[in-house]
C-alpha cells in the first residue's frame, strides 16, 4: 500500500519539481520583491521594511486605461482567433481525410520560426512602404498608402496570427471527438444544418472553445512583443508597462507588484470562467 503510493508519487515528481523551480519559486520571488523598495541604482531593497505600497500604487485609477487597453486587445484577439480557428478546425476534422496529420503539421509550421522574427515580418508587410501597400498601390486599389502599422488593427492582427495554432488545436480535438452520427441524428430530428450546429455540435465542442479561448486570452494579455513592434511607442498595455519597469525604468518592486497582480487576476479569471461555463455547459 505504502509502496504503491510512493510509486504513484514518483510519477508526479518531475512535474512537481518543474512547477516548483520554474513557477512557484519565481512567483514567490516576485512576491517578495514586490514588497520591497527601489534603490537609487534600480535594484530592489528588502531590508528597509516590507510593505504593500507598490500594490496601492498599482491600483491607482491612472492605470485603468492601460488595463482596459490590454483587455480590449486580448478580447478582440480571442474572438477573432476563435472565429477563424473554428471553421479551420472543423474543416480539418470533417474533410481532412487522409491529410489530417499533414494539415495539423501545417497549422504548427509557424512555430519553426522565432516569434519575434514572425512579428517583424508583419511589420515589413504592414508598414507604409511595405508589401501590402505595395500590392494595393501597384494594382491601383489604393492611391496613397494605408496606415496599417502602429494601429490597434496591427496589434490584434499580429496577436491573432501568433495565437491561432493555440486555438486551432484544442478546437480540432473537441470537434474531432463529436460523433458524426450524432449530428446526423439531429438532422434526422428536424434540424437544419444551422440548428444541428447550434443545438448539438456547438454545445458538444464548448470545452474546446473554452480551452481555445483561455489559451489565446492568457498569452494575449501577457504579450508585450506584439504591442511593442506592431503597436508602436504610443500603444500601452499592462504587459508593456511591466516590461519597461523591469528593463528601462528599473523599478523592480513596482514591476513585480504589477506582474503579481496580473498573474493573480488571470488565475482568478480563468478559474471563475471555467466554473461558470462548466456549470452552464454541463449543467
Amino acid at each position, binding site marked *: 500500500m505504502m509502496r504503491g503510493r510512493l510509486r504513484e508519487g514518483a510519477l508526479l515528481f518531475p512535474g512537481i519539481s518543474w512547477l516548483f523551480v520554474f513557477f512557484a519559486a519565481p512567483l514567490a520571488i516576485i512576491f517578495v520583491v514586490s514588497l520591497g523598495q527601489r534603490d537609487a541604482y534600480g535594484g530592489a531593497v528588502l531590508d528597509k521594511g516590507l510593505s504593500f505600497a507598490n500594490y496601492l500604487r498599482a491600483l491607482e485609477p491612472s492605470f485603468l486605461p492601460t488595463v482596459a487597453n490590454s483587455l480590449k486587445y486580448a478580447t478582440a484577439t480571442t474572438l477573432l482567433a476563435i472565429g477563424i480557428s473554428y471553421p479551420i478546425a472543423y474543416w480539418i476534422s470533417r474533410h481532412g481525410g487522409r491529410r489530417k496529420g499533414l494539415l495539423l503539421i501545417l497549422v504548427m509550421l509557424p512555430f519553426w520560426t522565432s516569434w519575434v522574427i514572425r512579428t517583424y515580418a508583419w511589420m515589413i508587410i504592414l508598414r507604409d512602404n511595405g508589401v501590402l501597400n505595395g500590392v494595393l498601390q501597384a494594382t491601383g486599389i489604393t492611391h496613397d498608402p494605408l496606415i496599417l502599422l502602429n494601429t490597434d488593427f496591427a496589434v490584434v492582427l499580429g496577436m491573432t496570427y501568433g495565437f491561432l495554432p493555440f486555438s486551432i488545436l484544442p478546437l480540432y480535438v473537441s470537434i474531432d471527438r463529436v*460523433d458524426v*452520427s*450524432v449530428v*446526423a*441524428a*439531429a*438532422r*434526422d*430530428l*428536424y*434540424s*437544419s444544418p444551422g*440548428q444541428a450546429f447550434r*443545438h*448539438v455540435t456547438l*454545445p*458538444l465542442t464548448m470545452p474546446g472553445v473554452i480551452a481555445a479561448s483561455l489559451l489565446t486570452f492568457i498569452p494575449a494579455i501577457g504579450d508585450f512583443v506584439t504591442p511593442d513592434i506592431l503597436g508602436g511607442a504610443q500603444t500601452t498595455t499592462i504587459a508593456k508597462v511591466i516590461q519597461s519597469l523591469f528593463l528601462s525604468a528599473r523599478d523592480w518592486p513596482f514591476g513585480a507588484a504589477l506582474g503579481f497582480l496580473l498573474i493573480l487576476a488571470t488565475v482568478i479569471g480563468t478559474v471563475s470562467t471555467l466554473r461558470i461555463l462548466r456549470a452552464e*455547459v*454541463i449543467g
Partner: protein
Amino acid sequence: MEAATNAVPEIRLRDLTKQFREVLAVDHVNLEIRTGEFFSLLGPSGCGKTTTLRMMGGLEAPTSGTVEIRGNDVTRQPPERRPVNTVFQNYALFPHLNVFENVAFGLRRRHETKDEIRRRVGDALALVRLTGLDTRSPDRLSGGQQQRVALARALVCQPMVLLLDEPLGALDLKLRKQLQVELKRIQREVGITFVYVTHDQEEALTLSDRIAVMRAGQVEQLGSPEELYDRPRNRFVAGFIGTTNILDGEVVSVSQDRSVVRLGTGELCPGPGRAPAAGQPVELAIRPEAIELRAMPGGAERASSLGGSPDGGASALRGNIEQSAYLGTGISYIVRTVGGQLVTVLCTRPADRFDTGDLVELAWEPASALVLAPTDEPGQAAAQSKTDAQEA
C-alpha cells in the same frame, strides 16, 4: 402476390444508385415498401443495405435514382423535411442532454408546446418502458436502455416510416432476443412502417413481414421469410438464409416429379421434377432438416446411391458420420459421403443417434431439393421472388 397491392407504396425506390468514388455501394435498387409492414434489408456487411436506408432518410444523397415516400418524390429533400425518423446503429444519443431532452429533441425543433412535449415524451418513454429515467444522462444507461431511448426519440415524432439501422447489433444475444420481441410489439402498437437493416438472417426471419436480401449493392431476392427460406432463388440467398447444403452436379434424367443428378463427386442423388434437361449442370440446395439419416448395417452391399433406381420414393446417398454436435433441440451431423461430399444433417428425433464413423444412408424427398439459379453475376434479380428462375 405483388400485383395484389394497388395502393401507393409507403416508400418506393426507383433505380436508386450510390457511388462512393470507385465503389458502387448501391446499384439500381428498385423496391416498394408497403404501408404498415415490417420490412428488412438483409445482407452481409458492405452489401449496401445501410446506404440504401440512409438514402431513404436523406442522410446520403443518391448518385442517381429517386426515393418516393407516399408518392412524393423526396430525393432532393434534406433529412429534416422528410417524414421519417432513424434509429442509428450506435444509438447516436446526444451526450449533453438527458433522457427527456433526447426524446424531446425532435419535438422542440418542431416547436410543439411545452405541455404537448411533456405529454408525448412521457408516452414515448412509457411505450419503451423507461418511465422514470427522464433526468438520467445517456452515459449512465445500459446498452439496452440506450437503445430504447433511441427508439423513443425517433417514435415520438410520429414518423410515417421508422428506419432502423442494425439497432440491436451492439447488444448481447439474450438482450437482443428480448428486444426483438419488444420491437415487434411496438411496431404493432404504433402501426407504422418499419424498415430494418440487419446482417442477422435469424433476426430478419423472426421480425419481418418481407425481406430484401442484398448483395453487392443489388437486391438478390425479395419475399416473405417463408419464401426466402423455402424457395431461395440462388446459391447466395440459400447460403445466407439459414444453413443449407449446396450440391453441384449434372442432370442425368428427368421424369414427371423427380430427376436424377450426378454430383461432382460421382454419386447419384435425387432432385425435383423441375430441373434442367439431362446433361445440363445444376446446383441443388437441401436444408439439413430435410435430410433423413438411416442406419446401415456395416458393410452392406448396396448401391452407392438409390437415386438411380426409378421406383424408390426417396433416394439416398451413403456416407460416414464425420462429426456431431448436440444442439439441444436436435443433433447436427456432418456426413462425408462415399464420394467425399460433405453434407450437414439436422436430426430432431432423439431416436436417431449415430456415432462418429457410423455408416448411414442419406435420403430426402425429391421435391425438397431445390434447383438454384446460377450466381456467377451478383444481382440480376428482379424485385420478385421466382422459385424456378432457371433461364430458358
